[in-house]
């Protein structure tokens, strides 16, 4: 296990600084540079938080599924940890997405929840499914089994995410604003640049948090194993 010698948290600091700069710039631009949207006014600016968060959340869920798949192929529990952290962070971001989406819906459509809105509804379904991930994971005691079944869940749910979005969309009318693409709905340059920067910033935030949690968990495991070895040496040696 020479790999363990590497410092787990390497690269975390520059990543965190880069995240702070990117996100700071993006939201600075949101407040001071982008114009107020003609229909909705100031409240439309929640879009720069809500949409990047939603995109990163879904990407995180799919990433968790990919890590889970690698875990199943290699049997290496490192990948299960990665998958777990990815899903766990996405779950928190998903809650944030639902809340900001709800606020936006209230401000622009007048209701906290709009069932005709396929993206919102799909998100809720995905959120409900992933809410079962932690109860499932922590109700399986054997560590190998836990890793395997959590990965199976991650793969199934990761595949479910796009399927669910397609199915819900087919069932409902199109009311959600299409943000990118579509000539009649194109954004002015400043909005587009800010939006793209916000996506990059949110992705970096996700990466930083993911790396931070992985580092913290690996460090704790290393500390545990050092403690156990110390205890063994202490009790093993004649006093």
């Amino acid at each position, binding site marked *: 296990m020479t790999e363990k010698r590497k410092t787990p948290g390497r690269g975390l600091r520059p990543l965190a600084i880069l995240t702070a700069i990117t996100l700071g710039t993006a939201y600075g631009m949101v407040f001071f540079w982008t114009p107020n949207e003609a229909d909705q006014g100031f409240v439309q600016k929640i879009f720069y938080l809500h949409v990047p968060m939603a995109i990163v959340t879904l990407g995180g869920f799919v990433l968790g599924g990919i890590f889970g798949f690698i875990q*199943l192929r290699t049997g290496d529990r490192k990948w299960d940890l990665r998958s777990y952290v990815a899903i766990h962070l996405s779950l928190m971001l998903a809650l944030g997405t639902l809340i900001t989406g709800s606020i936006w819906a209230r401000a622009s459509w007048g209701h906290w929840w709009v069932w005709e809105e396929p993206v919102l509804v799909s998100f809720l*379904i*995905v959120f*409900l*499914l992933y*809410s*079962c991930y932690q*109860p*499932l994971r922590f*109700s*399986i*005691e054997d560590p190998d*089994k836990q890793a*395997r*079944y959590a*990965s*199976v*869940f991650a*793969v*199934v749910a990761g*595949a*479910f995410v796009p*399927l*669910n979005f*397609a*199915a*819900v969309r*087919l*069932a409902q009318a199109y009311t959600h604003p299409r943000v990118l693409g579509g000539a009649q709905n194109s954004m002015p340059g400043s909005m587009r640049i800010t939006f793209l920067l916000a996506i990059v910033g949110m992705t970096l935030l996700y990466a930083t948090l993911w790396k931070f949690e992985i580092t913290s968990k690996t460090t704790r495991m290393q500390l545990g194993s050092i403690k156990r070895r110390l205890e063994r040496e202490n009790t093993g040696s004649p006093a």
Partner: protein
Amino acid sequence: MFRDTINLLRKDLLLEARGREVVPAMALLALSTLVVLHFALGQQSLDGKLAAGALWIAILFSATLGIGRLFVAESEDGGMDAVLLTPVDRVAILVAKVIALFTFLVMVQIVIVPAFGLLLLGPHLAPALPKLVGILLLTDAAIATVGALVGAIAVQSRLRDLLAPLLALPLLIPPLIAATHATAGILAVGGPEGIPGRWPLIIALYALVFGLLGIALYDNVLDD
């Protein structure tokens, strides 16, 4: 592989025929759900969308019960070890479980669909029956492929009976959407309407995707 599947399926059906545990419970839950819906909605009879919704809620609830119990025989007293010790392809185990769950669902529906027609449905059941049976069978296939996978995962957990419905319900929403849309037209007041082709297509594709996922993942799901 085909013979293995048949033998494993025979075992599951024989267990159910002798024990009579799961199917009666599923049918009873479905019936109780219909009665509860009558009072909850305050309606003497239903048609169209409401009728479709009531029928599918009852079916889904009873299905979650069946999904939770699907692997109980294997999880108790080392049943899974015994099955895995036999030289059987694991895909055969999956296929047998899917067909077993499908059979249970069909048996439940043989009871509750006529009961639904008598108790709650406004329009006559008979003219709607051919199309309804088609949609029911197709959706049962989707529920069975999803359910076999979920049942195998949930049975490993301490929270088994709690988790099975929590996992199964969100996963079954896409076929449910298609099934209710198709059924609403079938149970409309003015007699059955035609079903737009996309609804059966969605259900069939969903069953196919989860069937493939099950085959891809089953080696990892079935263990001791």
